[in-house]
């Protein structure tokens, strides 16, 4: 809808890139996202959604992983190129509240929305548990470390190359306290597991969901997820406009 100019678009290692856009907007909430058109071409056809990594008045940053045609084309765009951007969209992460310690659980590129969120945590002892496949993904933590946040960072890798070998949910199980509030972003399987762990401990858990999106603004009704909320209201909620952040307990994970 509006146009943003690429300031920087560089590879962080592996298939991970960071995109910086000159773009003005009224302000963003941690956990919100934007929709980008990666070219004027009709192929790829739809916009692509990306979480907001960082925002500072007139520069918006995105962290992205090349997984297909759209992200592939995005990775070839040079500084100076204009891209069409729609946003900020969605609800964002609610604050943990007084006396609560936020635990961010991220899988792979799911780390993206936590950079902004971690910076805005005002109370409690925040932690970031990061599950990665291997070294390439762990590189995404660099910014978090160099930022001087009071953030308790724990890492697990599937190949054991760095941090603990195994899944991030193992870390969560060990360290989840009753005064925690969990925030999770990553693959659906991980979110479901995180949500279950939190539920069993009676801890609140917010998950940031992904769905293929068309409109991004709640009108196509395409990005539905099923919730356990029942009639009179529809059991379906839209990831783009009701989310992307949901209370994990509400989600009917069977729809993933």
């Amino acid at each position, binding site marked *: 809808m509006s146009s943003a100019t690429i300031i920087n678009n560089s590879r962080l290692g592996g298939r991970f890139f960071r995109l910086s856009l000159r773009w003005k907007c009224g302000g963003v909430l941690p956990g919100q996202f934007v929709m980008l*058109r990666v070219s004027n071409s009709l192929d790829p056809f739809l916009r692509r959604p990306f979480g907001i990594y960082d925002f500072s008045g007139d520069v918006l940053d995105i962290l992205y992983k090349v997984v297909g045609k759209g992200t592939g084309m995005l990775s070839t765009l040079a500084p100076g190129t204009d891209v069409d951007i729609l946003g900020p969209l969605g609800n964002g992460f609610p604050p943990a509240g007084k006396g609560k310690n936020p635990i961010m659980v991220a899988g792979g590129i799911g780390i993206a929305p936590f950079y902004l969120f971690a910076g805005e945590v005002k109370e409690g002892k925040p932690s970031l548990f990061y599950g990665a496949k291997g070294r390439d993904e762990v590189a995404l933590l660099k910014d978090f470390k160099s930022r001087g946040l009071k953030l308790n960072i724990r890492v697990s890798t599937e190949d054991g190359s760095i941090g603990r070998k195994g899944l991030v949910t193992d870390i969560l199980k060990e360290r989840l306290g009753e005064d925690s509030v969990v925030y999770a972003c990553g693959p659906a399987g991980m979110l479901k597991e995180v949500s279950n762990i939190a539920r069993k401990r009676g801890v609140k858990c917010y998950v940031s969901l992904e769905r293929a999106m068309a*409109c991004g603004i709640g*009108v196509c009704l395409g990005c539905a997820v099923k919730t356990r909320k029942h009639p009179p209201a529809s059991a*379906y909620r839209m990831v783009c406009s009701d989310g992307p952040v949901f209370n994990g307990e509400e989600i009917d994970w069977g729809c993933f």
Partner: protein
Amino acid sequence: MGVFLKPDTSVKLGRLELKNPVMTASGTFGYALEFEPYMDVERLGAVVLKGLSLKPRDGNPPPRSCETPCGMLNSIGLQNVGVEAFIKEKLPRLKRLKTRVVANIFGETIIEYAEVARRLDSADGVDAVEVNISCPNVKKGGLSFGSDPSGAAKVVTAVRKATKLHVMTKLSPNVTDIRVMVRAVEDAGTDSISLINTIPGMAIDVERRRAVLSTVTGGLSGPAIRPIAVRMVWEAAKAATVPIVGIGGIVNARDALEFIMAGATAVEIGTANFLDPASAIAVVHGIEEYMRKNGVRTIKEITGAVN
């Protein structure tokens, strides 16, 4: 030649006058109000709202949409709040809009179609009903009427009786000969005809070895289908005596003009609203620009130019 004169973009669908031929397509424009942040909705010829049924509908399980080459598949399944909630919650605000409001209606039975029309008739603020007999994403109703001339005629007859509003009938492309359908709904008393609805289609995720959509098949929309839609509008316009509204893959003014030259009196912008929420208004401006540049004073001069 009056090159600097503002061209007259107004068109008439029977007795319904539109300030310009650009409408939005049902299911792609919500209840119109969602688009107010992106454009002056009142500059559109008409807004067509998300399909309404008698009772609220949950819609189909996800996944409900996926991208295809130059298009998309959807199987929303007409999730909507139902006509009563619409009249209570949405209509009061829509009434104040200075543009035409078209309600898209749907029923699982003929009686339901008529009942939705009747309730909208008595509520104030709707200018026309668009009768959707062409939705491929519902088990009952929809396409089961839309691909059979006598079923289609029955629905239109019932709706016609139930309302004094302008009745527009929305046809499916999924027929061997669109002219047969055109004649059937004309004889049943429709005031205008809109086409095309989405084309039944399907995509498979070859890694998971299963259909992408939960419903297996869905409806294909977007520029991919435009050549098919233009052809059907051209065929329909030649066969029809009532005005035709062209729909299918319109992204910009050039595309809209294709439909108008094929014989459409007005057009609806669908999937393009997802690519850019301001698409419809850009089409309005683009048509004005084309008219100015080419000395076209009224839309009529170019309507059906290709026959």
